């Protein structure tokens, strides 16, 4: 579904991505793990058209999207939930959700999908007239995912959804992600530093270090890999 080919990205003189290659198959949860500064966020930003690459291609369903403006990429069904959630604090919960449907014209279905999201996250329904900024971290993450789902994505990209959240909330978020993947056949690209949960949830995983993919395999394989256990699962 998504194929990244020889991606090179520079920030001024910093070579942030060095010839990245990877692939996501439809219906899979794929995770990209790596420590802070490895280049994970940069990859997502290139896919969603926020950062431009120097070399390389991003193919989505066979089409090179790497030169399209971000709104075209969203329209094709690729949505990016940014690091730190980036909830619109100037809008209330429902308005935030509607922003996810910004490019959609099917008014009736938007209403149905809104109900759908409220079913998925009942807490958002209780808070629908509350301003986005008043929500707890966990609720903001749910809102960010709900907002992204309102765009009817084919590929959902999540940047560190567990960041700063209590383990029980993280659990809940992961259950939702898995459920969306199973029930709606949603393809997910999951970026995490919290490797344990991500690897358990993922069909396939890539490890990135200083702008290069250094390891790949199924989630299970990497969970059992010595190097991964040492570097990312905090084991001796």
């Amino acid at each position: 579904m998504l194929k990244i080919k020889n991606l090179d990205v520079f920030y001024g003189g910093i070579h942030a991505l060095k010839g990245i290659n990877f692939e996501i198959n439809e219906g899979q949860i794929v995770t990209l793990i790596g420590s802070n500064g490895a280049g994970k966020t940069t990859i997502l930003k290139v896919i969603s058209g926020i950062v431009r690459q120097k070399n390389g291609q991003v193919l989505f369903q066979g089409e090179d999207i790497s030169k399209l403006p971000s709104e075209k990429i969203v329209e094709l069904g690729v949505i990016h939930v940014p690091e730190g959630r980036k909830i619109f604090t100037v809008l209330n919960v429902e308005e935030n959700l509607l922003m996810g449907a910004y490019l959609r014209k099917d008014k009736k279905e938007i209403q149905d999908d809104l109900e759908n999201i409220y079913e998925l996250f009942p807490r958002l329904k209780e808070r629908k007239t509350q301003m986005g900024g008043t929500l707890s971290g966990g609720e903001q993450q749910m809102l960010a995912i709900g907002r992204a789902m309102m765009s009817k994505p084919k590929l959902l990209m999540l940047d560190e959804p567990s960041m700063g959240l209590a383990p029980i909330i993280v659990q809940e978020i992961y259950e939702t992600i898995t459920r969306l993947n199973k029930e709606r056949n949603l393809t997910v690209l999951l970026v995490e530093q919290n490797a344990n949960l991500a690897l358990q949830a993922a069909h396939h995983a890539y490890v990135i270090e200083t702008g290069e993919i250094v390891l790949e395999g199924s989630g299970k394989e990497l969970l059992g890999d010595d190097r991964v256990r040492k570097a990312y699962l905090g084991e001796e």
Partner: protein
Amino acid sequence: MFLEQLSNGIALGSLYALTAVGYTMVYGIIRLINFAHGDIYMMGAFFAYTAIAYFNLPLVPSFLIGMVCAALLGVFIAKFAYTPVFNAPKINLFLCAIGTAIFLENFAMLVWGPETQSFPTMIKNEIYTFGGFKFTKLQAVILITSILLVLILSYIVKKTKIGRAMRCASQDMVAARLMGINTNKVIFITFALGSSLGAAAGTLVAMYYKAVYPMMGFSAGLKAFVSAVIGGIGSITGAMFGGLIMGIAESLGAAYISSGYRDAIAFIILIIILLFKPTGLFGKTVKEKV
């Protein structure tokens, strides 16, 4: 005397408010102190003046022509003078704004001449009294037009999809793009709205003082900027209150203290308010605007 000065102040204040709203909207979205805004206000007045004096059009169409032409001019400036340097350091954008201001002033001098032109009287100078409150028909027209325009703007910003997109983009440009918002389009629409309000204010001022001249945007722009800062730059409500406070204080100050201090009063208020509330009356601490 007091009430007379008050109605003068309210009329003046609503004009500062209209102008300040344009300043604050543009700042809200691209964090630019748009120094050319005062000159767009001047151009708007000249466009309306041209429609009236050269094409003999009635007031309302001329007024609207001024607004539309200024909106187009605002978009044109944003596209050709500002977007090319969006990704460069902020100082470049600021310098482009100053360059644009100087260009527009000189352009106006070239086209309409440097001297003051008298703006035809379009509204008869009738005086109304209302419970001791004396005001002219023109003052009433100014106030009502300003309120109407601000209400329309508030509706657009608060209730429409593009308004929501404007608020999102002003909070976080990248997050807005991730939702599929074409932020360039949002920026152009913001310039169009802000510029058309500026033009409306410019035309009303030209009617009020019966004069148009190429440098008329300079001090008006400065005062509108001060109004926006008093209200909390980025806040539309703030800009409206800031403008009113400025207008009223200026009229009363000129009447009771000395008319020589007219312009100084603006800055005295600015300093006093910022001493007590550095973010302005309606300013939020960081980032959230419009």
